């Protein structure tokens, strides 16, 4: 893809892009990775603490406690999004804030807030999945592929059919 685009450029454009590249401050990859690790890990620790609390104090069995944990993290993310904090956390944390379920909730809540001015139906309803939609589509496609692979290579299922 990148090569294809380069081929279409004229020699002058290519020369310019070389010059421009020199002035482009590089993305701080190591710093970003470190921050993503800390922030993403932090979100997971909060999740684990919540799950333990639901199991110990509320008395929920493990599977129900994990569902309650996901719901709580989504709620927290939506609250921080509406308070205008999550986008600042996102700039600092990068993938650390985008990958956990809180990032997914943020993408929906932020789109819903942003398009509120265009009405409930076409604004909030229609545009809420502007960013989250592709996550759902490709998440589902990936799940189908993985399920097929699982079916093909899992000896228990393959062997247990007879």
């Amino acid at each position, binding site marked *: 893809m990148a090569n294809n*685009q380069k081929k279409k450029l*004229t020699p002058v454009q290519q020369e310019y892009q070389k010059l421009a590249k020199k002035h482009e401050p590089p993305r701080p990859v190591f710093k970003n990775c470190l921050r993503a690790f800390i922030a993403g890990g932090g979100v997971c620790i909060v999740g684990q603490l919540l799950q333990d609390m639901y199991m110990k104090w509320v008395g929920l069995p493990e599977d129900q406690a994990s569902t309650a944990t996901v719901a709580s993290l989504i709620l927290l993310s939506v609250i921080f999004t509406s308070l205008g904090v999550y986008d600042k956390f996102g700039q600092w944390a990068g993938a650390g804030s985008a990958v956990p379920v809180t990032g997914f909730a943020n993408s929906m809540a932020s789109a819903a807030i942003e398009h509120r001015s265009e009405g409930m139906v076409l604004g909030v309803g229609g545009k809420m999945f502007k960013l989250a939609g592709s996550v759902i589509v490709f998440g589902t496609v990936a799940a189908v592929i993985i399920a097929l692979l699982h079916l093909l290579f899992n000896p228990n299922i393959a062997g247990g059919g007879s």
Partner: protein
Amino acid sequence: MRKGHQSWVFERKPVIQSTATVVGPFEGRGPLGKDFDVIHGESTLNQDSWEKAEKMLIEEAAQLAIDKSGLTKEQIQFFIAGDLMNQIVSTSFAARTLGMPYLGVFGACSTSMESLALGSLLVNAGAATDVLVGTCSHNSAVEKQFRYPTEYGSQKPPTAQYTVTGAGAAVISEQGEGPIVTSATIGRVVDMGVTDPFNMGAAMAPAAVDTIQAHFRDLQITPDHYDLIVTGDLAKVGHGIVCDLLEKHRIPVDLAKYWDCGMMIYDYDKQMVQAGGSGCACCAVVTYGHLLNRMKKGEFNRILVVATGALLSPLSYQQGETIPCIAHAVSIERGNISG
């Protein structure tokens, strides 16, 4: 009036009678805060959408520029302005409120100087005695249209720029007191194949250099004619590239006298703006507020303002198109300012 291929020299010396700048709270906290006429405490301007807030910005700036000029809006014949929103609605809706004969222009972030050049042209040609020009942009409205929802937690690369929330307007008159507009060079569209909308500085820099070069060629002057050459919103990345390109093309600009509005409006240490400021309002509020104030104090006699614009749409870059860019230059002189 036309000189060279793409420049106008204004012999009748249109006067910038008055200017007005209105900005949001973030710009107010920046190093140029004291140069702005109105600093809003809320970036929503107490409106229920970002788009309405942007319309308010240009309405306020236009009204204030009219009031400061001592004229009434009936005495001003034309309103020339534009913005970044689809179908330039903010400006057109403000023109509805003002009720003045209106020409909407689109030059993306170069609109500030495009409107100033056209306004000065009308006055110089005798097609008008007084013209109101201006432009506006709103950070959140632009983010919403061109990028992601404002509250979405995405990480911006260090080349990204922060759109200025604000509006700048000016009244250009045949007679009066104030800085004068002496010439303008209209740029052509330059596309160097940059596709990254998070690196506008690199996309726009060649357009700025092209217009600067054309200006000196058409007017047959050398860069030392000006006390200051300033680009609109190239920020750190684009500024560095322009410095390199000027040297490469052997345009003898004293680099200490070449600034960029996008690097002046925010405090890099305290404000998280990545490479610097951008947006229609960036060049407008820095020029009409800060630079003309300093000119009135006598710090500069002649400046060349080169406003740069990226002529892309959210659709065009999603379809993989490169970013065409433009720059318009206007030279402003101290003129007959008393004191």
